[in-house]
C-alpha cells in the first residue's frame, strides 16, 4: 500500500520476480510526498532535492541526464510517473483507495485489507497472503505544547501545511526547528516576511550543496568509498566547513552541542547568509507564549504574527494495531527497519531516514521483500530462518558508529552505506540459500 517511492519500488520488485501483487493508493496519482498538494505531501513550492541524483535515484532507473544535480519536486514527481509507466505499475495500482484497516486472518497466514473508495466512500475487503506497508513517515505533524499557547492571538501553523511563501508576506514570523524544512522556511521568511526569528533547541552544522565543484554528498561518498573512518571524516568535514564559513557563533548562531553525523544533516547554504545579513535572528528554544508573542528560554521576548512549527513528524499507522509492529517508545522497532517479530507476512518499506538520498535504499528494500516473498513460497524454512532474527535484531541501528542525538526524528535515521550493506548481506543470505 502507498504509491510513493517505497510502495512503487516494492510493487515493481514483486512483479519483476513473478509475484502477484496489487497496489492501493489514497491519491489519484503516484508520487507520495512528491505529489505536491496531496493530503500526505509535505513538499512546498520551492522544494528541490537536497541529496544529489546518483544515490537518490533508483539504481535501475536513473534520472534523466537533462535533470540538474538537485531536481525540483516537479521533476521528481515526473520521474516517479515515468518509473511507474515504464514498469507497467499503473495498471496494478488502485488509486483513490484509502486503506482503512488491515487485520491478520487464518492464524496470520493472510491479511484482510479493507479499502475505502474515496469517490464513492464504499468499503471493500480484499484478502492477501502478505502486506507491504509504504505509507510514509513524514505526514503526521509533531506539534510541541507550550505554556500560554491558548492565549496567543497570532497565527500558528505546522510546516505540514506550508506550501509556499505567500503566508509569510508582511508578517513577523517565528520559525521553530532546524530540520531541512525549518531552515528552508526561515530563508523564505527572510525573503518574504517583515522579519524572521528562528528558534532552535540546539546548534547545528549547515552543510553546503556543493564542495570543490561537486555535490557535497558525492564528496562525502568519495570519503566513504575510500573507507575513511568516522573520526577522520568528521575532521575533514569540520575543516571544510571551517574554511568555508568558520565559527558560527560569530553570526549569533549556537555552537553545535554534538559531533558531526549525530543529527540528520542539514543541507542549506542560504540560512547562514541571511543570518549574516540580519534578516534572520537566531533564537533559543521557546519557553512560553503570551498574547502577542513568545518568550524564549534565555528570557528574551518578541512580538510575532505567525509561528511556523517545523518540528517534524511522528510515525503513525492508523490502519494497523501498533502491537503488530513491535511498538516501543512511540515507534516501531523492526528488524532491518522492515520486519516485525509478530508476522512473517507483514513488512514496512520506507521506515528509514538516510543521511543521503533515499530511493537507492527503497529499491533494495523492494528487492529484499521480493526475495523474502520468494523464499516464503518455495523455501519456507530459509525464510523462517531469516525472519527468526526479527526479535533479537529489532533494536539494531545502522549509524556507522555515530550516536544519534535523542530526538523523535532520529528513530529511523540510518547511515546510508551502513544500512545498504546490511540490506545487501540480507539479500545474499537469501540468494545463497536459494
Amino acid at each position, binding site marked *: 500500500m502507498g504509491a510513493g517511492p517505497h510502495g512503487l519500488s516494492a510493487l515493481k520488485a514483486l*512483479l*519483476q*520476480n*513473478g*509475484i502477484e501483487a496489487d497496489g492501493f493508493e489514497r491519491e489519484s496519482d503516484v508520487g507520495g510526498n512528491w505529489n505536491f498538494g496531496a493530503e500526505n505531501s509535505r513538499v512546498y513550492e520551492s522544494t528541490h532535492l537536497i541529496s544529489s*541524483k*546518483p*544515490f537518490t535515484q533508483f*539504481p*535501475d*532507473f*536513473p534520472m*534523466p*541526464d*537533462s535533470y540538474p544535480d538537485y531536481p525540483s519536486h516537479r521533476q521528481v514527481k515526473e520521474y516517479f510517473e*515515468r518509473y511507474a*509507466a*515504464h*514498469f*507497467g505499475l499503473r495498471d496494478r495500482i488502485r488509486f483513490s483507495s484509502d486503506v482503512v484497516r488491515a487485520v491478520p486472518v487464518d492464524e496470520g497466514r493472510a491479511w484482510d485489507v479493507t479499502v475505502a473508495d474515496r469517490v464513492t466512500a464504499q468499503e471493500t475487503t480484499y484478502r492477501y497472503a502478505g502486506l507491504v506497508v509504504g505509507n510514509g513517515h513524514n505526514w503526521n505533524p509533531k506539534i510541541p505544547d507550550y505554556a500560554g499557547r491558548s492565549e496567543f492571538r497570532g497565527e500558528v501553523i505546522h510546516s505540514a501545511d506550508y506550501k509556499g511563501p505567500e503566508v509569510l508576506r508582511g508578517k513577523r514570523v517565528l520559525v521553530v526547528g532546524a530540520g531541512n524544512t525549518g531552515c528552508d522556511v526561515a530563508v523564505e521568511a527572510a525573503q518574504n516576511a517583515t522579519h524572521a526569528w528562528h528558534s532552535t533547541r540546539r546548534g547545528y552544522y549547515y552543510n553546503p550543496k556543493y564542495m570543490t565543484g561537486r555535490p557535497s554528498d*558525492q*564528496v562525502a*561518498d*568519495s570519503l*566513504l*568509498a575510500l573507507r575513511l573512518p568516522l573520526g577522520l571524516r568528521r575532521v575533514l568535514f569540520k575543516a571544510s566547513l571551517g574554511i568555508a564559513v568558520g565559527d558560527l557563533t560569530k553570526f549569533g548562531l549556537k555552537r553545535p552541542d554534538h559531533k558531526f553525523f549525530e543529527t540528520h544533516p542539514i543541507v542549506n547554504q542560504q540560512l547562514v547568509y541571511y543570518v549574516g545579513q540580519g534578516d534572520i535572528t537566531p533564537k533559543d528554544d521557546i519557553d512560553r507564549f503570551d498574547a502577542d508573542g513568545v518568550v524564549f528560554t534565555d528570557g528574551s521576548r518578541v512580538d510575532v504574527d505567525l509561528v511556523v512549527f517545523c518540528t517534524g513528524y511522528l510515525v503513525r499507522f492508523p490502519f494497523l494495531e501498533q502491537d503488530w509492529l513491535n511498538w516501543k517508545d512511540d515507534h516501531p522497532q523492526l528488524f532491518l527497519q522492515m520486519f516485525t517479530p509478530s508476522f512473517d507476512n507483514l513488512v514496512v518499506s520506507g521506515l528509514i531516514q538516510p543521511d543521503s538520498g533515499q530511493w*537507492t535504499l527503497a529499491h*533494495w528494500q523492494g*528487492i529484499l521483500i521480493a526475495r523474502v516473498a*520468494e523464499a516464503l*513460497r*518455495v523455501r519456507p524454512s530459509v525464510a523462517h530462518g531469516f525472519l527468526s532474527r526479527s526479535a533479537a535484531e529489532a533494536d539494531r541501528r545502522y549509524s556507522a558508529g555515530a550516536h544519534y542525538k535523542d530526538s523523535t526524528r532520529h528513530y529511523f535515521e540510518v547511515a546510508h*552505506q551502513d544500512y*545498504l*550493506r546490511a*540490506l*545487501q548481506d540480507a*539479500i*545474499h543470505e537469501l*540468494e*545463497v540459500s*536459494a
Partner: protein
Amino acid sequence: MSTGSDRRSSTSRNPLRRKTVAMRPWDWSFPSAPVSHREVISAQPAEPTGRPPLLMVHGLAHAAWCFGENWVPAAAEAGFPAYAVSLRGHGGSAGARHLRRTTTRDYVHDVLQTITELPEPPVLIGHSNGAVVAQLVAERYPLRGLVLLTPAPMHSAVGDLVAIGKDRPADLLRAVVGQTLSMEPDILFEGLDPQTARTYSDRTGPESPLVQWELLLRRRVGPIRCPVLVVGTPEDRLVRPADVQRTADTYGVEPVWFPGMGHDVMLDAGWEQVLDTVLAFAADLPAWGSAPVR
C-alpha cells in the same frame, strides 16, 4: 545452426557469476558525466503488436548505424519496436571530444539512460564490446531478455589479443599503445562483396583506448536473472569461438553458431538468419512481471 536455450543459469556456483551488488560507492561519488545528445535510430511496427522493444548496442568503433542498416527496419517490420543507440563519442552522439577519457562505465550509463526513455523494459542486444556493456547493464536493470552477439569476453580478452597478435602483429601493437583496433573488411566480414564490406569498414570510427584496455580485465557478472541468448561464429577473427562458448557457459546456455559469417553478424551476408534467431528468442519471452518464481 545448433540451438539450445536453457532459459536461466541455475545457480551462482559458476565462478564467473557473482552475488547481487548493491554497494557501488564509486558510481555514487563519481557519476558519469551527462551527455548533451544521444543518437537513437528507431523504427516502429505499423501497428502495436504487444511485442517487447529491442534495444541494440554496438561494439568497438561502430555506432548505431551498424544496426540501423538492416536490423532496425527488419525488426520493426516483424512487429518489434526497434532501437539502436550510439554510445558517447560514437556516430551521431555527443562526446567525441572526451572519447579518450571515456570508460565502459560511461557506456553503461548511456544504455541505462536510453532504456529509461523506452516505454517498457526491452530485450537488450549487445554486439562484441556492446555485449560486455549489455551484461553490465543486465546486472543493474531487469531486462526482458539479453542477447549477446559475438560477445567480447568478460573473463578477459587477453587470449583474443594474443590470437590477433599471431595473425596481425601490427594490429596488436596499435591496440596496445592505445590506437583503435583495426576494423578492416576482412576482419569483420566473410560473405559480403568487397565494395560493401569496404564501405562498412570505412564507417567505423575511433574508440576509447581505456575501453579497449578494460577488455583485458577479468570481470565477474551477475546475477543476471533474465533469459540469455548467445550467438557466435566459428570464423570470427576478433572473438575466438572458445570465448563465445565460455560466455555462454556462464549463463548455462549453448551458443547458437552461424558458420560462414564474420564478426559483424548484423551486417555480414546472412544477417537475416541471425536476426530471425534473435526475434524468435524475443517473441518467446514471458511478459515482464509474469515470469514464474524460480
